[in-house]
Structures are given as structure tokens and as C-alpha cells.
């Protein structure tokens, strides 16, 4: 595994042990019927400033790191996320956005449980065209695909790039449709900003919004900075014993 390529933008990286199961975070059901969808509002320009953050992440007894970098490009914006959970579980995903924060393309490289992860997809409206490598017992097969996603859905890999551009405030609720092009499957989730919290993570203490992301059978808890750009500070998935906390923030 060539880690050197990532080291240039991972200036401060801390890997700590398992944070384990979080207490007091039981699943709840969405109760507010009013829904807004991504794309219904355009992101505010001040929110779209470049940032690069790194996180410590733990999943059960395993631990690793995640790095997010959001940068303007000649044609819009680019969000790069890398994570490392050991030599068989690592990935770098690059999502390109238009100036209006519509996903143009996604490229992912890495390994998942030792299997090759290699994906390219380009979006034109709702149409997704691309290819991925499927790992068979004794070979790798390049599989082209062409499919559609429902109206207002977005590539699931774009979630962490899109969330900072939302209009964060207590009471905000949005319906998210996250599309996985390889499986042509769209997952529904409801994001609700429920409170303001001051939380402390390895990177410091932050005034944050606490949000709940309600999936089919579980709820994931998110803390994003109250200050724009609203950037992730902590993510907690109690059902899967998965926790991510910011360890370094670079303006």
C-alpha cells in the first residue's frame, strides 16, 4: 500500500484505539412530515470554501483514519475523501461537483475486505454511466453499466461533500436519496438537525449542530460546526459501533 501519496495532505494524523459503543443514542423515527430535497436549494456561496480535515475513526475494535478535502476547481468543486482501516480496507474517493453542487462524476480506488474497489461514473442529469471492476474467484472483470437514479437523488459518495453546503439550523429536515450506481440502488434517509451542542474532539472544542440521519433501521448521529462552512466534527453510528472524530482542521 502506497501511503506516501497521501502523506502530503495528511499533516497531522492520529490513530487511537476503539472508542467503542456510544451510550444514550437510541434510534428514533422521523416525525416531521415536511421534507426538503437536495437540489431544491442552492448552496450558499460563503459555505463553499476550501477545507481539508482529518479524522480518527473506529469501527468496533478496529481503528483507522479518514481525510476530507474540499477544493474549488476550474469547473466547480472537488471533494476527496480517503480512509484507511488497514491494508485490506482503504479507499480514496474523488467527487467532482458543478458550480451548483450537482455531482458530475465519482472516481473511487482502493480495497474493500481485500477485494479491489475501482469505480468510475459520470452523471448527466439522472443518467449514470461508468464501469467498475468486479472481483471473481480468479480474475478481475471490468463491468460497464448505464442506469438511472430517481429524481433528486445523488451519488452516495457525495454525501460528505454535500452536507456542508446545506442550510444548517435547528429544525432543518431534509430527505436524502443516496444512489449507489454499481447496484442501481437508492437509499432513503431523513436528516434532521435537532439541537446545538458544544462538543470536544481531538481537534478541539466546537460549537456544533447535532443532527440525526435516520436510515431504514438505524440512526446515525452527526455533529457539524455551527460556523460556516459547516464541516463535520463527529459522526457516531451506534448500531455499527462506528465513530469518527475530527483530529485536525485546516482552513
Amino acid at each position, binding site marked *: 500500500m502506497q501511503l506516501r501519496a497521501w502523506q502530503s495532505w495528511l499533516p497531522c494524523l492520529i490513530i487511537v484505539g476503539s472508542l467503542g459503543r456510544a451510550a444514550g443514542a437510541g434510534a428514533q*423515527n*422521523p416525525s416531521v*412530515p415536511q*421534507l426538503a430535497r437536495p437540489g431544491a436549494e442552492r448552496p450558499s456561496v460563503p459555505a463553499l470554501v476550501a477545507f481539508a480535515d482529518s479524522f480518527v475513526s473506529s469501527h468496533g475494535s478496529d481503528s483507522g483514519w479518514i481525510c476530507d478535502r474540499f477544493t474549488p476547481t476550474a469547473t466547480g468543486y472537488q471533494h476527496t475523501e480517503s480512509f484507511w482501516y488497514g491494508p485490506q480496507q482503504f479507499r480514496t474517493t474523488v467527487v467532482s461537483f458543478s458550480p451548483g453542487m450537482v455531482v458530475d462524476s465519482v472516481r473511487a480506488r482502493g480495497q474493500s475486505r481485500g477485494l479491489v474497489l475501482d469505480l468510475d461514473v459520470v452523471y*448527466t*442529469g*439522472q*443518467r449514470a454511466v461508468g464501469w467498475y471492476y468486479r472481483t471473481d474467484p480468479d480474475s478481475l472483470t471490468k*463491468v460497464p*453499466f448505464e*442506469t*438511472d*437514479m*430517481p*429524481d*433528486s*437523488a445523488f451519488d452516495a459518495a457525495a454525501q460528505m461533500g454535500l452536507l456542508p453546503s446545506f442550510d444548517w439550523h435547528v429544525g432543518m429536515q431534509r*430527505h436524502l*436519496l443516496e444512489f449507489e*450506481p*454499481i*447496484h*442501481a*440502488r*437508492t*437509499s*432513503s*434517509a*431523513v436528516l434532521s438537525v435537532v439541537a446545538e451542542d458544544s462538543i470536544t474532539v481531538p481537534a478541539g472544542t466546537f460549537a456544533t449542530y447535532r443532527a440525526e440521519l*435516520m*436510515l*431504514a*433501521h438505524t440512526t446515525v448521529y452527526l455533529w457539524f460546526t455551527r460556523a460556516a462552512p459547516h464541516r463535520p466534527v463527529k459522526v457516531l453510528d451506534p448500531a455499527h459501533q462506528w465513530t469518527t472524530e475530527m483530529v485536525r482542521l485546516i482552513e
Partner: protein
Amino acid sequence: MDLRAFRPWLPCLVAAAGTACVAPGTPRSTLAPRSPAAPITTFADSFLDVLHRPARSDTGWLTDRFEATANGYRLTAAFGIGPMVFRTTTVFFDLDMVVDSVRGWVRGLRYVEYAVTYAARRVTGWYQSGNAEYSPRVAIAGVRPDSAFEANAIKVLLPRLPWAVGMKRTLFEFNPISASTQTWIITVLDEEQVTVPAGTFEAFRAELADPAEREFVWYTRDVPHRCLKLVDVTNDWSMELIHY
């Protein structure tokens, strides 16, 4: 497998006209307008199911019954194959063929029971999964994408497509239990004469595909289009009409 038991409640026939699907090939999909004048015909069909395996094949049955009720329509699908799975699903539609609610259960190797109600795009309900001794009830609260339809309603929606060689549609199939939507692309490939246990029919042959799975279906050329045969290439499973 004695299919005679199903015959008393298998009297008549299928449906017609347009549905809420999206045409691929254009950058942005558009929903076909709802067709309130579309004729809705009740039907009841039964099928022979075969799950092909290297060592042996398991045979089973599937019955679909679509009928009018006091406040809309009801589709009841019952399925059983070998000793493994028995499943019954009931979908309730309003008079405009919008899905109101779904109830279902699975028995055999799995124990599942669920009930969901739709209010526009919002879906609420519960499901239980486990075994006969322990199956905790879990709440369902999700949102269906605009253009998606309840997965269990596909047997009523497919006959309402404008079947013709070359027809291509994107279908968004919503599963409320997993709060996920599967994209399928259906393409009518050609016309064929097909023989199934129920007889010989002039049929359209269509491919129903997502990136991971591929099925072929045969529907009658005559309106109302009804399902004659299905071959699931990926899972080595097929079914053929035996009685209508």
C-alpha cells in the same frame, strides 16, 4: 404440487395502459402523466415456479389475484417453493391505483411479517423478522422517491406499460422495509410465439435488468398484457403461466 386448489379463485384477467415510469435516454427523466381513464381490469393468474440448481430443481407456485374492493383495488400474491419459503403479500390501491398500504408475511426458513401504509411519499409501518419464537417488531418510517412505486405493485404496473417492440423504460422499485429503491430498465426486445402450460400465445419478449441481475419476461401481445413467462438468468429461476 397440486395446483387445482387454486383454480376456484382464478377466474379472469389483466390490466392495461400507462404507468409512472421514466424513459431513459434523456438527460433528465420525466414522469409519464397519470392516466385516469386507463382501464383497470381485474385478473387472477397462477404460475409454475422452478428454481434450477446443479443437483436438482425445486418447483413451486405463484398466484396473483387482482380484484376490485369497495374503495379501490387489492392485489394478493401467494408464493411457495419447496419446503423453503411461503409468502403472501396483499397490496391495497385506491381508485386511482395509488398504493395505500401493504401487508405481507413469509414463513418457512424465514419468519417475516410486515405492514406499511403510504401517505403520499411518506411510508410508516412495522416489520418483524426472526423465527417463530423470537421476531422483534421494528418500526418503519421512510420516504419514497417521487417516481418510485411500491415493489409489490410491479405485477399490476407492468401490464399497464405501452408494450411495443423497442419500448424502453426505467422503473424505480421502492422497498419500504429497507427504505431503498432499485432501478430496473425494461426493454421490449421482440415478438415471439411462446408455449407455456396454459397454452400457446403471441408474446412480447422483454429484458428487465439492473447492473447485477438480468431477467427475461414474456407478456401477451393482446391487451390487457399479461405475464406468460419469466426467466431469471442471474438466479436460475423461472416461472410459467399455468392457469388464468
